[in-house]
């Protein structure tokens, strides 16, 4: 998957990395070459996208060429979710004391912060990196491996960068939209980011297989529990939840990639 490779185009080098001054020293020739590499990469990506589009002409929208397949996935997801994941999450909320659930959320939030720090660095955002690293150190060290969000009480803002956003900042297109059962909405770019994250997560380095599996399951239940109320609103708001989720997801990701300042949408109406 090409989205996983680090970027090599000159304009994508994060500020402060060694890449930028080097490109200047090499002069125009070198940066032009680098730019050409970037262009080739973009053309290659465009070709892949064209092939994907051609192979699935049913999809009415460019961003969701696999819509028929995704809709089947969505139905499967609804079944698995309605019969297993959601009831478990509801029972979890009902029978687990709030203090325990908060600790669980904080524990996984601390892992999020760790990855947020890594991605702050990859995106060249020293201020955010400082905050997130501060959070991880504080909460891991003084907050019992992240169970207590001490940094939050101290008002250190929580970052939310991830690999998918980093790829977006680097200029890698999001690729086709995907709906994956249990996992939910994603894109090729964001999904690649989650795969990296899944392999690199501290949970994955736990040697005891049962503990590892319990933690993954708990992570899923914690995430699902946090979405219980939103889901209710979604069902009230949407004529077609599939379309609603897709547009919400893609808008949200765009917003996050641009750190809350996405370019204005094309005003084609009115």
């Amino acid at each position, binding site marked *: 998957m090409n989205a996983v490779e680090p970027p090599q185009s000159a304009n994508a080098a994060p500020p402060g990395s060694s890449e930028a001054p080097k490109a200047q020293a090499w002069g125009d020739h070198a940066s032009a070459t680098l730019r050409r590499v970037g262009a080739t990469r973009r053309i290659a990506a465009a070709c892949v996208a064209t092939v994907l589009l051609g192979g699935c002409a049913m999809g009415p929208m460019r961003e969701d060429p696999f819509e028929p397949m995704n809709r089947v996935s969505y139905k499967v997801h609804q079944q698995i979710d309605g019969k297993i994941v959601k009831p478990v999450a509801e029972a979890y909320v009902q029978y687990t004391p709030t203090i325990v659930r908060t600790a669980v959320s904080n524990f996984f939030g601390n892992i999020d912060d760790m990855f947020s720090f890594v991605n702050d660095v990859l995106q060249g955002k020293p201020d955010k990196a400082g905050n997130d690293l501060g959070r991880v150190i504080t909460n891991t060290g003084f907050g019992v491996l992240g169970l207590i969000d001490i940094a939050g009480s101290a008002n250190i803002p929580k970052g939310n960068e991830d690999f998918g956003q980093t790829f977006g900042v680097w200029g890698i297109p999001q690729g086709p939209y995907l709906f994956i059962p249990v996992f939910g909405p994603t894109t090729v770019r964001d999904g690649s980011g989650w795969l990296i994250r899944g392999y690199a997560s501290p949970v994955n380095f736990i040697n005891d297989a049962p503990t590892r599996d319990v933690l993954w399951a708990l992570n899923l239940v914690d995430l699902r529990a946090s979405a219980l109320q939103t889901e*209710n609103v979604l069902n*009230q708001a949407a*004529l077609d939840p599939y*379309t609603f989720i897709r*547009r919400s997801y893609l*808008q*949200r990701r765009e917003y996050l990639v641009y750190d809350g300042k996405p370019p204005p*949408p094309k005003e084609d*109406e*009115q």
Partner: protein
Amino acid sequence: MTFDSKRRAVIGALRLCAMLAALVAVPAFAQEAPDALVKRVSQEALSIIKSDARVQAGDQAHIRDLIEAKIAPHFDMDRMTALAAGRAYRQATPEQRKRLADEFKSLLIRTYANALNQYRDQTISYEPLRAEPNSTEVTVRTQVNRPGQTPVSIDYSMEKTPSGWKAYDVIVGGVSLVTNYRDEFTQQVRQGGIDGLINALAAKNAAPPPAAK
């Protein structure tokens, strides 16, 4: 005697003051700055959520009435509907436009009523308005802070109208309501034309709301 007439004069003066204040207050209200308007309406809504017993009991019909009376007037439903329905709206008859706007409004009110019980224990912070003094379109930015969670931004796209500032889009955490509905409306129009869309909205509004949590 003199005491009584003095008292009457004082009462008369007070009454006059009250009337004048009312006269002055009405136009001042209409010209309320967009950020001040958002703040006032949000605070009002929050205080209702916290104090109204029927809201807390989850009386959906009552909640919808309150939203209709207190919040809906500050939205430009025609513009929201036009933005969400796009070309289909421009090609629709005035009667279709009205029905579409009415159904869309009902749906939004029902959705908001459903979402309202999530707003307990929340505080809202308001960012200073960055806009030219005589601009007619602004974005009012707010942030909803929930204990133990990342804050969510709620931005209101607003326009100046003869009857005060009105919102025509709400952007929650970067997700624009109008943009979301544009996809939904396009899909319905493609399947059954503008009447198909109106009927789909009407059917949705007639259905009982999803079980409240």
